[in-house]
């Protein structure tokens, strides 16, 4: 017993260390991104601007342009990362991501229809995307329900729904004006461009609530990761716990997607990276996964904005280019163990 406890304590210590390290890295990138851009602002002026000691042109650039953008990147990245980690533990499959329950497909189809058929923009598109994501996830779950939900059925029904929704997206894209279709492509790729405090003000409280709900549920997640029987054995209400966790994970991904678009790969890659950093005991460590997500999205945006002079790319273009090689390396390594 004491061995188990000691092991657990050691794992916990490592998770805490890793989380602190990641938090420092996220903060460093966020601060760095404040001083970087078309307009050169020295670090001292950035600090002055943040402290409100300067209200000139550079203060506007720092406080209204770069700071909200950096915050949205951290928040949305954390949401994607945590959502992915929950799904991967729940489905007991490293391949799982919120995509399997249709968040991306649902949000994408709703947003493209809103943008191209209804001519909406801004907050209205985000709202449509949120509704689309949640409605799709709910219908996939309901369709997969038959004396309970099995992972395999959920995945196949998710694929089928995604096929239909992708059909709607591609069809709408072929019927639209090419300039509008390009705007839709930017949305579908996922972008942090022109994110203002208005986005932060909606995103931050929504995610705060969801994080607060998710962290206590980690206990259930740890039990469910082993097997349903084991979980039941230690008194976890299996069906209720699973539904609750899925709901939280879907809501996290849906809110983040509504804010920045379906950024590829962050949800997928955060869990495996976090697990590698925290070691074998950290399978269900949601905080490191969330921080990895924040780190990946912030770093990817930095690259997307500044890698090519005078041409900024949507952040979603970069996340996979950054994430994929790492995942492949991971894959090659696990084979040897």
């Amino acid at each position, binding site marked *: 017993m004491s061995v188990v406890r000691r092991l657990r304590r050691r794992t916990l210590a490592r998770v805490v260390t890793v989380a602190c390290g990641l938090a420092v890295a996220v903060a460093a990138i966020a601060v760095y991104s404040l001083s970087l851009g078309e307009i050169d602002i020295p670090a001292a002026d950035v600090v002055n601007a943040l402290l409100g000691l300067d209200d000139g*042109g550079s203060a506007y650039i720092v406080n209204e342009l770069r700071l909200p953008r950096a915050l949205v990147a951290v928040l949305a990245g954390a949401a994607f990362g945590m959502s992915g980690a929950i799904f991967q533990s729940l489905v007991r499959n490293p391949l799982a991501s919120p995509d399997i329950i249709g968040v991306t497909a649902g949000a994408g189809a709703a947003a493209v229809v809103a943008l191209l058929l209804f001519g909406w923009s801004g907050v209205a598109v985000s709202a449509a995307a949120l509704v689309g994501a949640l409605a799709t996830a709910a219908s996939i779950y309901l369709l997969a329900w038959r004396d309970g939900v099995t992972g395999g059925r959920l995945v196949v029904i998710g694929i089928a729904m995604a096929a239909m929704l992708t059909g709607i997206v591609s069809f709408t894209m072929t019927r639209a004006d090419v300039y509008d279709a390009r705007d839709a492509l*930017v949305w579908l790729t996922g972008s942090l*461009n022109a994110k*203002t405090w208005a986005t932060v003000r909606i995103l931050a409280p929504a995610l705060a609530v969801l994080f607060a709900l998710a962290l206590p549920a980690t206990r259930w997640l740890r039990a469910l990761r082993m097997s349903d029987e084991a979980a039941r054995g230690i008194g976890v209400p299996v069906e209720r716990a699973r539904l609750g966790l899925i709901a939280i994970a879907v809501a996290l991904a849906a809110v983040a997607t509504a804010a920045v678009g379906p950024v590829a790969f962050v949800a997928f890659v955060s869990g495996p990276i976090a697990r590698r950093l925290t070691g074998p005991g950290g399978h269900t460590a949601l905080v490191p996964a969330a921080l990895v997500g924040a780190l990946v999205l912030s770093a990817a945006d930095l690259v997307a904005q*500044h890698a090519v002079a005078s041409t*900024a790319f949507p952040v979603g273009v970069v996340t996979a280019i950054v994430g994929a090689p790492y995942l492949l390396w991971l894959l090659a390594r696990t084979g040897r163990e």
Partner: protein
Amino acid sequence: MRRPHRLLLAAFGATSLLVTTACGAAGQASDEDARKLPAPVSVEHRFGTTTLDTVPERIVTIDLQWTDVMLSMGVEPVGYSVDTLMPETGVPWETIPEGATALSLTDGVPVEQILALDPDLVVASFSLTDQATYDLLSARVPTIAGPPDADTVIPWQELVGTAGKILDKTEQATQVVSTVEGQVAATAAELPGLAGKTFVLAQYVVGDGLTVVADEQDGSSLFFQQLGMTLLPEVKAEGERTGDARIQLSTERIDLLRGDLLAFLINGGDESDLADIPGFGELPGTVALLDYPTIVGLNTPSPLSLPYSLTQLRPHLDTAAAA
């Protein structure tokens, strides 16, 4: 024709964190020596009303139409958006001044890049549709966005008129409008045979289908109507039935292309792809195969694009008038 090199750089440069910092001068335009307008000018647009008191000197133009309008008024924009559908050599009817900065819209409107140019006016039409982007820009620079209804194309005459008022050059604006309108009117006068003839404007997306303009208010439709022609009644009826300004057409429905003049774009292919359309070779009217800029010049007309497109079309108009 396109720009592969920058693109590959973009794709692979992204993997190595190759950060470049662009230099730009921050700071405010000095208002002291700015020229006052005789009376404040207010422009209504999608996100409200923008009022100008002084003549802007550093203008950023988003979208082709506005760039053209400013150039036609003799104003050189400090920054302009690049239309990636146009040939890499540039828009054929435009000569962009050396010092102007090309703005890429790959991640939406680049707010910081625009502010770095220290402009005193930003004008845009259909590429500025996001409220947040407008808010960020308009907090620092007077910004004019597109029309309240996103689907309408503002008549170019109106854009030139607005520019005339903003720039305090109303007489020049009137002159630009009358010169270009005069060219169209002169063509109509020279070719009385066009009166009453029908036209169809269509494109073939190779491997997919046809798209046909069915709206008489479309910029290109108006152009042909000014020449005395009318939209093919069958196309107009089909548009009214489906309620679409542009109708989708199967390649088997060539009956809707039988106008006296067919202005046609092959999108993503060449003339050999016309073999996909049964009966295309037997069409009764004059077939004018046009390139992409010519069609855009008619769809979203500007005082610079219209004369260009008119020149490109002229031989076909001659044939159609004589038929």
